[in-house]
């Protein structure tokens, strides 16, 4: 389907047939602003999009909004369901309200900003990029995070940073409990400045005192580092 560029394309999600395809085609045709009305918490909105362009959803979205995003800016005025921005490689996603489970799961790059709270498993398997939560995160946030920054301005639930690889988690509020192999370390002044810089870029002012959570690295290896130990079977 070929489309010509318009200053702003308005799509009605009630007429949802191949909506994602229509957005991609519009961006390919040069449209830079897309507004989607009546999202009504539908699943799979804004999936597999690319830049350059901004897609705004007027309302709440369901599961996997902005999933596999490859460069688009996606702005949701209200809340989002599971797996927001999962596996995103680049771009920016902003959620005005709250997010449910698995926000930014396995994302590799780009930025996600959630103005409210996030549910469990936020940033699980994250492999890069920045995920900022202005509110609180649920249990198992940062589970097996490989790389990137999960920044939580509010509180964090149980099992924070369980089985972390090399990702960093920053929490300004209370931590209900750390997961296996997660430890709190003192951030350096430069690190704090970097995190505050990321927040400022998203319009989040204020001075936070972040606790930095990283892997203690006890789960990175089986006890035996001697290759001969693997030959006994």
């Amino acid at each position: 389907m070929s489309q010509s560029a318009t200053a702003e394309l308005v799509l009605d999600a009630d007429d949802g047939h191949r909506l994602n395809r229509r957005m991609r085609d519009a961006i390919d045709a040069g449209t830079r602003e897309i507004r989607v009305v009546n999202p009504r918490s539908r699943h799979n909105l804004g999936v597999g999009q690319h830049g350059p362009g901004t897609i705004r959803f007027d309302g709440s979205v369901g599961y996997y909004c902005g999933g596999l995003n490859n460069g688009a800016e996606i702005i949701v005025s209200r809340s989002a369901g599971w797996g927001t921005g999962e596996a995103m490689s680049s771009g920016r996603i902003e959620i005005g309200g709250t997010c449910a489970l698995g926000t930014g799961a396995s994302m590799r790059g780009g930025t996600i900003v959630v103005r409210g709270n996030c549910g469990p498993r936020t940033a699980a398997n994250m492999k890069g990029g920045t995920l900022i939560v202005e509110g609180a995160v649920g249990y198992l946030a940062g589970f097996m995070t490989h790389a990137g920054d999960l920044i939580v301005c509010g509180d964090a639930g149980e099992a924070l940073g369980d089985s972390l690889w090399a990702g960093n988690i920053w929490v300004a509020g209370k931590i209900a409990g750390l997961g296996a192999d997660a430890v709190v370390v003192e951030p350096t002044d430069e690190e704090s400045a970097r995190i505050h810089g990321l927040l400022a870029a998203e319009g989040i002012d204020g001075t936070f005192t972040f606790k930095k959570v990283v892997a203690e690295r006890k789960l990175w290896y089986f006890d035996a580092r001697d290759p001969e130990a693997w030959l006994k079977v």
Partner: protein
Amino acid sequence: MTDHGYTQGRSHIWTSDTIRDIHAKAELGRYQIRGFSTFRQFPSWDDLVFLPAVMTRLPLEGYREHCETRTIIGGGKPDLVARPLELDIPIYLTSMSFGALGTNAKIALGKGFSAAGSASSTGEGGMLEEERAASTKLIYQMTPSRYGLDLEHLRKADAIEIALGQGAKPGTGGLLLGMKVSEKVAKMRTLPMGVDQRSCVRHPDFLGADDLQVKIIELREATDYQVPIFLKLAACRVEYDVKVACKTGCDAILLDGTEGATAAAPEYQLDNCGIPLIAAVRTARRAIEDLGMSGKIQLVVSGGIRNGVDVAKCLALGADAVAIGTSALIALGCNSPQYLDDYAALGTAPGACHHCHTGRCPVGITTQDPELEKRIDPEVGGERVAKFLRATMMECTGVAKSVGKRNVHNLEPEDLRATSLEASAFTGVPLAGVEWTVGPQYLGGR
């Protein structure tokens, strides 16, 4: 006979293997991990025989008449899948990750399966460029860890497989010991180099079948309804698992029996979890039929499939296709009698090697060591794999023709007889000679 300095005594409980295992655990303080597949003995495909045509059927001329082998997976939902996976043969390569396998092995397998008109699969470690280039058709495997998951890779794939279980280690995640987490592997997986990678078992953004249903639509939306989406399941509660899988809206189910291999798994999992493939195929087919989904969802099976007659038996019991791993690796040279000193250094010998987990594969297949990898020439290896597949299909079509079939997909349970009570009970196939079926009535028992 002595083995590693132990002699088998008269006890059937405290065998030399059991004693050796306890000694190793007492020394290491952890369970044993190894590659290859279960060492348990299950009723096997050898417990089933075909009944070729004699007086009541007409055989096909083995060397002259054609037996169709074309196989289409994901063709049951044309409104959702624009490009089903079309294969010349009913066999494709199972998911074996780059990381578990070296680059040259990956390329060789891609070339071999492409030459046979079939497909290969990425496995857990992400899409290797060299493998994509070597494979005419490539299945992208999405595991819970999502290593290297990339929209563009999904779009370059010819099918997407969502891994929910593996026959060798159901209910657990991937495992790649530090010896194999080389710079290239670490980069693809975003891991610190040299760590013992233990992957998660649950997907990070769905938990149950209802969520998975939405996830499958997400993948379709992202890839524009081009390619089929498979679910890989370990054979466990087969009837219910398959029925629930059908409800997720997937296009094909890959059912992996407990005989399925691994590059590394805890030994207690390998030998004690999941059910043998022979016990799962018929039940899986019946589950799909119960839902009226035959033809809409394809059933692919894997785990311990060695030759063309095993393939034919799987098809006869209800599979639409099979996937193979170990037999393709053996075709490539696994366990072949060369580099004997290197086998000996692992404490093993050709024919007995199961040491893929060590990263020191004597023949250069399951390794990231650049020197060992040189032992696989992708061209030569690809030709060996292609020849093996050709021979396998000659066996498969040969037996199908003798049974009187013009299409391997027309093989059916009635073409088989069981030579053991267990095989009859597991498959619902009558016992040879007495025409009496052991087992539940819904599978033909009486």
